[in-house]
């Protein structure tokens, strides 16, 4: 971990897609510590997915700089960069024509691993994300939503990245599965000493999972801090409103529990 610290530094990033729709990011600066779990929160169109994509160069900043592990990403090879960063896609993004095993092993294949080594690593990863080995030869279409999400996480972890980028990874599944998935992932994050950036529109998820939350609104970073800091001292009305939701939910649950006891 100390040998090669993989932290992210984004300096004054601006992004325009050049189609007249203005700027998706308006001078965002952000810092992610090694080993940290950061959640990017905001409504759709706030720029959080774009910000995430700057890190592995699926999007390039119009202005500003992005450093990963202290090195400017624009100076290196984007293909090599992406192969050493885990990425979990919105809507899972599994390759429909490949089996579960091939999906998980795809980056390893690209890196030139031999078949036996890939097979062994796929078995490890299935175990890691708590999927049965029997699932390996199946096609993604035959998986449940939760299973597909776990395969997506396993694929991102395949090449043992130190940095994980996750774009709404636990969306589109039922609340119970979602809860199990996110708790399992947080455990993996701790066990594997990963650095994780998670994009979500679900504030509750961010509050429960993340060490630190960054709130985006219309391409601007409006506030960042620990969940406690954001709950205690929201800087803008937008943040206050955003944080009010988990608070209300928690109070309601507490009052129901209290009511049951009495």
């Amino acid at each position: 971990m100390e040998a090669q610290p993989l932290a992210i530094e984004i300096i004054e990033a601006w992004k325009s897609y050049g189609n007249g729709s203005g700027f998706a990011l308006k001078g965002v600066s952000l810092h992610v510590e090694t080993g940290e779990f950061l959640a990017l929160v905001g409504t759709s169109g706030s720029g959080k997915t774009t910000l995430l994509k700057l890190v592995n160069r699926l999007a390039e900043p119009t202005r500003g700089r992005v450093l990963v592990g202290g090195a400017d990403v624009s100076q290196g090879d984007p293909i090599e960069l992406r192969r050493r960063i885990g990425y979990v896609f919105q809507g899972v993004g599994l390759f429909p024509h490949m089996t579960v095993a091939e999906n998980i092993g795809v980056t390893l294949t690209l890196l030139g691993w031999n078949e036996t080594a890939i097979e062994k690593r796929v078995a490890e990863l299935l175990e890691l994300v708590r999927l049965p080995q029997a699932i390996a030869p199946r096609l993604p279409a035959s998986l449940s939503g939760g299973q597909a999400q776990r395969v997506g996480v396993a694929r991102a972890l395949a090449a043992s990245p130190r940095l994980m980028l996750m774009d709404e990874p636990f969306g589109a599944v039922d609340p119970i599965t979602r809860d199990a998935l996110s708790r399992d992932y947080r455990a993996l994050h701790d066990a594997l000493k990963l650095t994780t950036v998670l994009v979500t529109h679900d504030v509750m998820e961010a509050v429960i999972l993340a060490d630190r939350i960054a709130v985006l609104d219309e391409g601007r970073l409006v506030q960042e801090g620990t969940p406690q800091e954001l709950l205690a001292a929201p800087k803008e009305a937008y943040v206050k409103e955003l944080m009010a939701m988990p608070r209300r939910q928690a109070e309601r649950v507490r009052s129901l529990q209290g009511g049951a006891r009495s």
Partner: protein
Amino acid sequence: MASFDPRVQEAWARLPEYLGAHVALSTSALALGLALSIPLALISVRAPRLRWLLLTAASVIQTIPSLALLALFYPLLLALSLVAKAAFGAQFSALGFLPSLLALALYSMLPILRNTVTGLVGVDDAVKEAALGVGMTPKQSLYRVELPLALPVIMAGVRTASVWVIGTATLSTPVGQTSLGNYIFTGLQTQNWVFVVFGCVAAALLALAVDQLLALFERLIVKRERKKLAAAGAGALVLLLAVGGLSEFAGSGAGYVVGAKGFPEQYVLAALLSQRLNAAGLSAVTRSDLGSAVIFNALVGGDVDAYVDYSGTIWTNTMHRTDTPKRDVVLKEMTDWLKQNYRVKVLGTLGFENAYVLAMRRDRAAALGIRSLDDLAASAPRLAVGGDYEIFGRPEWRALREAYGLSFRQERAMQPTFMYKAVVDGEVDLITAFSSDGEIAEYDLLTLPDPKQAIPPYDAVLLIAPKRSEDARLTGVLQPLIGRIPIERMREANLLVTGGPNQVPPEEAARRLWAAISK
């Protein structure tokens, strides 16, 4: 029971040659079409302007009638061949396989191009982004993700193309490529419906079989059954070579090529020439159903060694003459002209004439008071005339109309086979018949004399290719045919082939003709 029909037996006997040539041609064309279309599609997926250009060009090609496209390649290749000869001293055959291959390959491109582009463009953007996100290069993304996902759409295009190519390949017969179309063209000309149906069914079955084979390949690719795919591929290749080789085998060791245009008299005469050569111990094959314009160029180019043409045809269509001097003058000038301009040798006339004549039912002619072309002008505006596909565009027709002041109510082009039925049934009032047709006697039609000699004479002349003009063996064998065939014998032979209860194949008619004239 059906197998006792000699026509069915005859059809089966020709199957190896026709099917083999058809398979060899259509698979080569499909392979070439694929080899051109897939890379073009891959390039154009990322270049919208090029894509538009390519698809438009492919669509335009598709709108050219396939027969015309095939025919257009012949003169083009002939010119290229002459250029190649001038530049490198080496010439290639512009007849048959090559023009058919190129035209069919072009024809196959639209469905393959369009489906490949559509398939690739249609791959979900999220999946393409995922491919980049896991660290694929654009090329890896194309081969590992986009192409496999577009495969069903691409294969649908390939299958459409294969059915088109196999069907259209039947039209390569007139440019000198043997195919299942030989059944259809010969059958139509000789009213041999067994042949026509046989050819159509064979082509349809072949198309279905290839379509199913491609479907099998697709299933194996999708299931990634590499071993089975390799086995199926190897099996198909062996089958292909075997069937394609049938035709090679059937036509192996051919020394001389005798050409024939696409009508019964030509089949009989070509068969007669081949039989005479074979009888003298020289091997010879016949290439039938060549277009009028194609066959002369093929003779000049050396793809055909000998064939029978008609002096009037050469006079008007090749020499572009509009005057109509006496018969001897036409023959003499034509012989000199062909020798000087093309080094083509006119061995001589066969002894009969196959001229354009206007023919009509006797009762109809009597009712209108028509005895010769001179009497026709007054009634012409009320009459419909039927003719073959060529006549109404030929200079002879213009000359005839001008000489007699003819202006018909309607000019209907039709298959010569149906012309006689049409005039007998009264669908048209008169037809442009051929003087050596057996049907003139069969239906007792009146042929109208041409007192002004507006139509040139059409003596059957035996032409020898430039490269064979000094070939003493060839000319020695064919010389005895000169001046030997009277018009009555030719009509008998033609009638034997075109129908009636005692219909026989051209080869048999040729044997009987020889038996009759060699006494």
